[in-house]
């Protein structure tokens, strides 16, 4: 077993070493394991009433993608490394899908409605695609408006607190006390105070993102090394220049740290607030599906959430890597 040893020179984030097998056998095994999943689904008779066509199409697309990527990778060595690195994992996914399919759709050991098989979940995603699209749209709208507002407020208050003593004196204690309250604790108040569920949800997400961003920005501003200010002053800087060209750039890595925390808090707040008050969105849908005992829809929503949130985090991460390309250890 190879332990994951973090070398001192290894960056905290960003660049990943592809240390997995160099040989192509695992990749071939991975393709075969997904083929087995497809074979099992096609050949073994169903013992549940499930539309397995979407699942089969999904597996076929999966296999085709794997093969196409493999062919491309003969020309692109970096892609080859990534594929081989992921091969064992894909192999395991293929096995897991096969076993799960056998246990549920094929043998009815895992029973509907509480434990649907992969075929059932994918078939629900396909048949309910419009609902999922609309729900994702509503969730994303609430999420992004809230996160953007919260971040703007967070950056502004963070700068004020980090830069001006007066603001620090008055706002920092408030930030410290209110900032540690989980935003969902405000739900009862938000529901009463705000005219509709969208505004209430917005308020909660703004709260969830504002404080971590404000806190990290103020820390980042206040921790600017004195020598940077002195260097700027001997180059002709005035107070304003020190803030805009020294302190704020110095705080940018902390802005991203705050933003990552804020994003996590906001996901939680988004789903919880939608579950409680809203008439739309993924959180609302999952709750609605639950009341109808439509557990296939619940699982499907969870899958959609995982996909949507992963995309958001990936976008955030690559933005961060681009903006912080000046930092040591961030790959270009």
């Amino acid at each position: 077993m190879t332990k994951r040893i973090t070398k001192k020179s290894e960056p905290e984030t960003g660049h990943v070493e592809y240390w997995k097998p160099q040989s192509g056998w695992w990749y071939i095994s991975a393709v075969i394991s997904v083929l087995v999943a497809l074979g099992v689904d096609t050949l073994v008779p169903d013992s549940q009433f499930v539309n397995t066509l979407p699942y089969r199409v999904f597996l076929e697309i999966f296999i085709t993608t794997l093969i196409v990527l493999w062919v491309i990778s003969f020309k692109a060595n970096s892609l080859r490394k990534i594929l081989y690195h992921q091969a064992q994992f894909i192999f395991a996914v293929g096995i897991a899908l096969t076993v799960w399919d056998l246990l549920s759709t094929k043998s009815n050991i895992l029973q509907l409605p509480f434990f649907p098989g992969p075929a059932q979940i994918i078939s629900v995603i396909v048949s309910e695609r419009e609902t999922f699209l609309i729900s994702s749209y509503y969730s994303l709208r609430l999420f992004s408006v809230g996160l953007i507002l919260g971040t703007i407020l967070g950056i502004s208050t963070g700068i004020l607190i980090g830069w001006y003593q007066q603001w620090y004196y008055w706002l920092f204690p408030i930030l410290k006390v209110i900032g540690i309250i989980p935003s969902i604790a405000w739900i009862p108040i938000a529901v009463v105070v705000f005219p509709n569920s969208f505004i209430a949800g917005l308020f909660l997400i703004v709260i969830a993102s504002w404080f971590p961003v404000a806190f990290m920005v103020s820390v980042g501003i206040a921790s600017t090394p004195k020598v940077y200010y002195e260097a700027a002053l001997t180059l002709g800087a005035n107070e304003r220049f020190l803030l805009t060209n020294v302190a704020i750039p110095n705080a940018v890595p902390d802005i991203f740290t705050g933003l990552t925390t804020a994003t996590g808090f906001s996901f939680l707040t988004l789903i919880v607030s939608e579950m409680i008050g809203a008439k739309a969105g993924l959180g609302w849908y999952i709750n609605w599906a639950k009341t109808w005992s439509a557990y296939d829809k619940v699982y499907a929503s969870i899958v959609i959430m995982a996909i949507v949130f992963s995309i958001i985090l990936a976008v955030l991460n690559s933005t961060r890597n681009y903006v912080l390309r000046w930092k040591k250890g961030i790959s270009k």
Partner: protein
Amino acid sequence: MSKQEILINISGINRVYYDTTGKTTVALQDVDLDIRKGEFITFIGPSGCGKTTLLRLIAGLDSPQSGVVSIEGQPIEKPGYERGFVFQQAALFPWKTVEENIAIGLKARKVFKEKKQYIKDYIDLIGLTGFEKAYPHEISGGMAQRVAIARALINEPKVLLLDEPLGALDAFTRIELQTTIRRIWKKTGTTIVLVTHDVDEAVFLSDRIAIMTARPGRISEVITVNLKPERDRNDDEFIILRRRVLEKLELAGKHWSSRLIDPLEQPSISGVGEAI
């Protein structure tokens, strides 16, 4: 030389530090010195003798308890671009490229549009062509100091203050940069004040060397370097002068060496083996 105009006048400077435990350090006591326009003057002395403090007073980054530092007759109260400063650890802005670091002064003074064509000239001057787009973490310590020097020079300062800029570099890079600094000084004609504890460096670069003593920090003597402009470290006169500076430093050191001092803080005596 002696008829030259005075650029900076330092008179009656006292600077005492009080730390939180109530301990007081007399960093500078009754320091007087005139710095002439266009000269290269070096402050040399053991660690803790107040070299940095004196340089920071000229820069306006610090102020004395008593005494005045003035430039062209104007008392210095705050930092300004006409007194460029190079720190021991370069202090480049890590989020800016080499080129952007050099442009900072122009931006800060709001003359970027008119003067941005000079950035290239200064990159050439310090020999960093090809590294314009590199970030500070991608370049070596010696290159970083070159950028720091160019960044100060682009403002065409009346005086360039260098606080042990080569202190953290290896011997080879140090000699290389000394040559660069000398070339730049000749080419631009800027007054340069250098702080160092390397005797060789002081003799190689300076017109005058101010020897400083510690506790309390003062200037004990100013030695004029009468060497020919093309300096050669193996020249007899060079070696003799280096030994003289070293003797003065040791003499100056007698005042404090009896006290408990970390031997690592002693002035560096590079090249002394062949001199004695």
